[in-house]
């Protein structure tokens, strides 16, 4: 279907998926040291009960601020919030040319996530105005109405599969609106999302389903770009055709790498965060009551739930030989970084896993730190607040279906499904 598939060369994307279940997530490999730091057999993103991945980082913290994992090709692991902060603020030393710790030489390029300054800075200046709090006010009515329409359906059912029926559909509808794709294509996008992001190793052993779904996404945007070239509208794809870098239009291949990243980064993240938040409120009735009785707390509650369930691992690749806090790191080494570490830093949050819905101030790191801070953060926040408000107006009482045990999985770990019944 496509000659060039930007962002996806060769077939190794499947390797990113979690290792098979029932392997132990962390084992200290005896008392081994590597360049003076403890060696652990740490494989990020193992299937575990809710918050298992965050709990693992807390356990690792006891072993030291910098560890060496023997998993995959071997990589450094940072367990100290201040060190994570330093790494993410220093793109000259810690490059984004690879951002998955187990994949130092990715066969794909996601724009702008995998660019470093100054190229990264140029892209961010193009993108930032679309996602600024000022511009988002214009989108508010359409976010409200997409949410409302989905809830109309969910309310009737008396219960739901939360991701399938709500959390996956909601941000995807808004993405389609912003990118200028018709809402009728929602089912097709959801099918691609499942194939690219949610298949298990059993369902797609060689990763070919995943690759072909990504090719289809790229193919779709490739056609959409051609349509908008002839008939521009007020959407991001049309606007992107007028963007210039160094006074030249952006090559189509780069625009496709950009569309693919927006698809990968913008859809799943909001779904995951909504599902964690709803799991929390279903299992902490006193917090749910607070939200139902006092909706004004939702703004700070959304921030607190972002803090506790921080799940994105923006790993980095060492760009030059350095000594980092006494540890010699070599050019090309990978450093596993995850934002739960600064968000759970015990120096800032002494009782870090206890939710305090009215917490202020709350300088958590759920959206990352440094120049790669999530460009869509303000949109994500707005989507989360609107969903929490509307859901609790219409469905104040709900619980997890008897006997259903939610699990989280993936390097960007999220709850795979949440079966709810309304009470």
């Amino acid at each position, binding site marked *: 279907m496509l000659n060039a598939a930007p962002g996806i060369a060769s077939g190794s994307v499947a390797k990113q998926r979690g290792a098979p279940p029932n392997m132990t997530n962390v084992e200290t490999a005896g008392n081994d040291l590597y360049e003076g730091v403890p060696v652990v057999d740490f494989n990020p993103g193992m299937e575990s009960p809710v918050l298992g991945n965050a709990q693992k980082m807390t356990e690792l913290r006891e072993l030291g601020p910098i560890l060496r994992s023997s998993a995959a090709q071997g990589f450094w692991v940072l367990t100290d919030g201040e060190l994570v902060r330093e790494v993410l603020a220093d793109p000259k030393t810690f490059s984004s040319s690879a951002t998955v710790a187990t994949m130092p030489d990715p066969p794909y390029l996601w724009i702008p996530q995998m660019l470093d300054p100054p190229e990264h800075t140029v892209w961010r200046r193009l993108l930032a*105005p679309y996602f*600024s*709090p*000022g*511009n988002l006010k214009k989108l508010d009515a359409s976010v409200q109405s997409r949410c409302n329409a989905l809830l109309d359906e969910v309310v009737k059912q008396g219960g739901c599969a939360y991701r399938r029926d709500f959390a996956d559909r909601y941000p995807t509808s808004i993405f389609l609106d912003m990118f200028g794709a018709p809402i009728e294509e929602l089912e097709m996008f959801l099918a691609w999302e499942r194939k690219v992001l949610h298949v298990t190793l059993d369902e797609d052993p060689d990763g070919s389903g995943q690759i072909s779904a990504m090719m289809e996404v790229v193919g779709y945007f490739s056609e959409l770009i051609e349509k908008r070239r002839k008939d521009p509208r007020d959407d991001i794809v049309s606007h992107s055709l007028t963007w210039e870098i160094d006074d030249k239009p952006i090559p189509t291949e780069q625009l496709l790498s950009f569309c693919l990243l927006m698809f990968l980064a913008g859809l799943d993240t909001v779904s995951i965060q909504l599902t964690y938040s709803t799991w929390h409120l279903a299992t902490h009735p006193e917090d749910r009551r607070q939200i139902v009785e006092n909706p004004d707390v939702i703004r700070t509650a959304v921030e607190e739930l972002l803090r506790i369930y921080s799940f994105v691992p923006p790993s980095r690749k060492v760009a030059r030989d350095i000594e980092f806090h006494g540890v010699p790191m070599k050019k090309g080494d990978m450093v596993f970084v995850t934002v739960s570490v600064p968000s759970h830093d015990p120096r800032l949050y002494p009782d870090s896993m206890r939710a305090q819905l009215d917490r*202020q101030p709350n*300088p*958590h790191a759920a959206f990352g730190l440094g120049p790669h*801070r999530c460009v869509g953060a*303000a949109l994500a926040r707005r989507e989360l607040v609107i969903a929490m408000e509307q859901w609790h107006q219409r469905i104040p009482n709900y619980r997890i279906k008897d006997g259903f045990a939610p699990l989280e999985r993936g390097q960007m770990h999220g709850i795979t499904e949440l079966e709810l019944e309304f009470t």
Partner: protein
Amino acid sequence: MKVRINPDKCTGHGQCAANAPDVFELDDFGYAIPFDTAVDPRSEDRARLGAAACPERAVQILD
């Protein structure tokens, strides 16, 4: 009270303005706009909150 915004550290989280909209203003890209005037005494508590909410520690309070 004055505030000092460090533009080298600001990455546009927008949490200063979210917590203290009467003190901080964001530009079209979502980054905090530095300013040199004194904070209205009635807004000082909110200014402190806005500064403390910055994940990048880009806002300093000068009493």
